């Protein structure tokens, strides 16, 4: 596998600070739900910087999608969120990663916890689940600052219906008008309660900023969930 020159064929403003880039990658042979690609930028003097981005598209989609959250002091994400236009080209390599993946052959219930942009690979799992006709039960707990920061806002309801998934949003700062659900940072008690009735063979996927992943996975392990059934993807940060 080598670096490939991908065409940016679509861009969607996801939130005020995040964008989804649709990429057409030459000779793309599909991915597994949950995998990522690396994107590499090259400055005129040859200096290069590469970072990893999870795919949010379904495993078999011919056009792949990544959703990038802008890190204000970052090197690569500000360029991807503010500097790229449709028709531009980006170098990519992938798909990468073989553990944080969901395969349609899996029949056990799926439990997913996402924080911020960490919902991206979980949406890939949702989409792949729908496309494959898999009937395993799916639930998603999605932690997000406030309504305008919800990724895939317009599709989430549709995806939820199609997958017959149970989606729980947790707003950490502001909730929409009339919101009766939880508000405030996710803590161990919240996760424990949310997962209390899940079958013991459930597979768990947790993705987001490192601290968020640590908290969510620690909470599940503390309630007796087998650590080998918990797959995590840490996006970094504090």
């Amino acid at each position, binding site marked *: *596998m080598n670096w490939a020159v991908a065409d940016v064929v679509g861009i969607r403003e996801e939130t005020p600070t995040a964008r989804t880039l649709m990429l057409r990658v030459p000779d793309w042979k599909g991915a597994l739900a949950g995998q990522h690609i690396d994107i590499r930028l090259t400055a005129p003097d040859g200096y290069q910087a590469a970072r990893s981005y999870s795919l949010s598209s379904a495993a078999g989609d011919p056009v792949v999608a990544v959703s990038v959250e802008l890190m204000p002091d970052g090197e690569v994400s500000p360029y991807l969120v503010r500097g790229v236009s449709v028709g531009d080209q*980006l170098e990519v390599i992938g798909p990468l990663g073989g553990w944080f993946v969901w395969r349609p052959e899996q029949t056990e219930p799926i439990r997913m916890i996402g924080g911020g942009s960490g919902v991206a690979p979980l949406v890939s799992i949702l989409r792949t689940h729908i496309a494959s006709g898999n009937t395993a039960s799916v639930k998603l707990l999605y932690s997000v600052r406030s309504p305008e920061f919800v990724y895939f806002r317009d599709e989430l309801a549709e995806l939820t219906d199609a997958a017959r998934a149970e989606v729980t949003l947790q707003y950490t700062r502001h909730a929409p008008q009339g919101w009766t659900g939880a508000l405030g940072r996710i803590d161990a008690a919240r996760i424990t309660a949310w997962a209390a009735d899940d079958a013991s063979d459930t597979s768990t996927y947790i993705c987001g900023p490192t601290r968020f992943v*640590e908290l969510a*996975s620690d909470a599940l392990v503390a309630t007796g969930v087998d650590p*080998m059934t918990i797959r995590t993807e840490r996006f*970094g940060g*504090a």
Partner: protein
Amino acid sequence: MGIITPGFFGKKREEDPKLPPGQYETKDFPVLSAGPTPNIHQGEWSFTITNESGEKTSWTWDEFMKLPVETVDTDIHCVTRWSKFDTTWRGVSLDTLFENVETSAGYTMAHSFGGYTTNVPLEDLLDGKAWVAFEFGGEPLDPEHGGPARLLVPHLYFWKSAKWVNGITLHDTEELGFWEVNGYHAYGDPWKEERYYYDS
């Protein structure tokens, strides 16, 4: 070199000979793990080397603490592209641990609490190239960074420095560990950018 990305200039300008290709320097200490962070008490920790005929050499935590300790100053390179310079560790050299181990095997598998494994050729663990480290930056090693003890093999990508390590088994032929089966390179030399298994 790739295609030029219009309008991208990057942050770091000076070439740093300490930086392997495709890496960037970070001052943070990011966490890469496949699952939750296990919480292992020193009392339940032990370390066992098992040779190719099944003979075991083991240390409890207290026995381990009586072994000669070395201070290691080194750069570390994670496959997720960050490098961290001038990190300081304290631990026991694998040369010390292998002193009384009888073996003619060429390959090893490091084993960790939680079931993770990673494969390393034996010669990459000996001659001052690897340690079992239990201190980082003058403090006991944090669980999320592999505490109470992790392997430290700084000349390879950092996933080879198995967190929560509890033993090494010796093998006549090369087998692949957890990370390697899941898409990472069998050897993992950062200077050759051996990140993924299909990198030849």
